[in-house]
C-alpha cells in the first residue's frame, strides 16, 4: 500500500540504491571468484604499486564526475549510467538529444522518464552489440581492426560533439561564448591538456559556465 504512494522519482531512488549496491558487490566479487577458483592470490607488491598509480587519480575524477554528471542525467539515468559507463561519449549525449527532441526539461518528471528510457535503451543496445561482437570476435576482428574503420572510430568524439554543439549553442548563444573561448584557449595553449585529460576539464567547463550563467542571469542578459 505504502509503495503505491511513492512518487516515481522516490521509487527510482529506492530501486537505484538496491540495484547499484547489489551490482557493486557482484562486480567486486569477480576478482575474488577467480582467486578462489584457481586457488591463487594476487601478487601484492605489483598490485599495490599499480593501485597507487591508478587509484588516486581515478577516484578523484570519479568523485568529481558524480557531482558533474548526476544533475544532468537525472536520477534513473544516473543509477544506470554509473553502472554501464561510457557516460560522456554515449549515455549523456543520447539522453540530452532525447530530452531535446521530446521538448522536456531535465528537471521535470517527463524529463526523468525520457532520460531513463533513452539511457536504458542505449545500455541494452550497447550490451547486446558487445555480446554479439564477443560471439563473432574471430570473423569480426580483421574487419574492425581495418585501418579505415580505426580512423573513423578515432574521431567519434569530434563527430559527436560537433552535432551536439550546434543544438545547444544555437539554443544558448550568449551563454556559449565565454566557456567555448576559455576551453579553446586552454586546450590550444596548455600542452598537458589532451584526449586523456578532457574528463578532468569537463567539471572545470561546467563550473565556469555556471559562474558565467549566474553573472549573465543577475544582469538580466539571459
Amino acid at each position, binding site marked *: 500500500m505504502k509503495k503505491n504512494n511513492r512518487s516515481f*522519482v522516490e521509487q527510482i531512488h529506492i*530501486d537505484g540504491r538496491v540495484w547499484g549496491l547489489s*551490482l557493486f558487490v557482484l562486480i567486486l566479487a*569477480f*576478482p575474488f571468484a*577467480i582467486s578462489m577458483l584457481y586457488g591463487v592470490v594476487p*601478487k601484492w607488491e*605489483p*598490485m599495490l604499486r*599499480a593501485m597507487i*598509480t*591508478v587509484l588516486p587519480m581515478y*577516484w578523484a575524477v*570519479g568523485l568529481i564526475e*558524480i557531482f558533474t554528471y*548526476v*544533475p544532468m542525467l537525472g536520477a*534513473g539515468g*544516473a543509477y544506470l549510467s554509473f553502472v554501464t*559507463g561510457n557516460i560522456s*561519449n*554515449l549515455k549523456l549525449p*543520447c539522453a*540530452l538529444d532525447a530530452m531535446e527532441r521530446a521538448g522536456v*526539461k531535465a528537471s521535470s518528471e517527463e524529463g*526523468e522518464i*525520457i532520460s531513463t*528510457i*533513452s539511457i*536504458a535503451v*542505449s*545500455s541494452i*543496445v550497447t*550490451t547486446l*552489440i558487445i555480446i554479439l*561482437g*564477443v560471439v563473432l570476435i574471430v570473423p569480426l576482428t580483421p574487419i574492425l581492426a581495418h585501418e579505415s574503420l580505426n*580512423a573513423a572510430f*578515432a*574521431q*567519434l*568524439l*569530434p563527430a*559527436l*560533439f560537433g*552535432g551536439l*554543439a*550546434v543544438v545547444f549553442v544555437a*539554443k544558448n548563444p550568449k551563454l556559449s561564448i565565454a566557456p*567555448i573561448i576559455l*576551453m579553446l584557449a586552454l586546450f*590550444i595553449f596548455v600542452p598537458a591538456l*589532451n584526449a586523456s585529460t*578532457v*574528463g578532468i576539464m*569537463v567539471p*572545470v*567547463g561546467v563550473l565556469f559556465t*555556471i559562474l558565467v*550563467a549566474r553573472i549573465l542571469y543577475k544582469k538580466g542578459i539571459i
Partner: protein
Amino acid sequence: MEFHVNSPILFVLVGIIIAAVLGQSIFFLWRALSHAKKKGMDKAIIRKTITSSIVFTIAPAIAILVGVITLSKSLGVPLPWLRLSVIGSLSYETVAAESALRELGLGLEQTIANAADYVTVAFVMTTGIVIGLVLVPLLTKRIQGGLLKIEAKDKKWSEVLNNAMFLGMISAFLGYVFCDVTLVFEGTTYGLIPVLVMLCSAVVMAVCGLLSKKLHARWITDYALPISLISGMAVAIPLTNWLG
C-alpha cells in the same frame, strides 16, 4: 584447474555479471515505460525516443567493441568484455591494465599466462572504478534534492543552470577537438582532422535542422544526431588518408 585468459569458466562468470547489469537496464526501462503510460505521455514521443536511442547507440557501441578487441590480445576476451560493458571506458581501462601489467613485467601485447597475474590485473581494474558504484547510490538523492530546492526557489535560474551544465560539458569537448591544432605550425597536419570532422558534423546537423523545417519532415530531426555522427566519422576516413 588449468588457467587460460579465454577459459570457458571466465566467460560464465562475466556472463552472469553482464546478465545482472542487463537486468537493471530492462528493469529501469520497464519502470519508466510504465510510468509514462500512467502519466498518459504521448506514445509517439516514447516510440521515437526508443528508436532514435537505438540508432544513435550503434556507432559508439561498435567503438567500444573495438576496445574489447584491442585489450583482448593481452587479457583475453572475458575481462575486457566485463570491464567495457560495466562502468569502464577504453581510456581508463587501458591505463589501469597497462599499469598493472607493467608492474608485473608484462605489456599489452603479451598474453597473461597465469592466474595470479590475471587476478592482480583484475583487482587493479576493478578497484579503480568502484568509487561511482559505491557513491552514486549514496549521493544521487541528495544531489537531486539540492537541484529541486533550487528549482523551487527560482524556476528560471534552475533552467539556466541546467543549460549551463550541458554547455560546460560540450565546451570542454569542443576545446579537446583543438588540442593538437598548433602542430600545424610544426608541419604536422593530423591535428586538423578532429577540427574538420567536428565542423563537418556541425554542418550536417545544421543542414538536418534546416531540411526538417523546410520539408516539414520531423523524422529528420529525430535522427539528426546519429546522421551527423556517422557523417563526421565517415569524413574522418579520407581526412586521415590526406592529413594523418
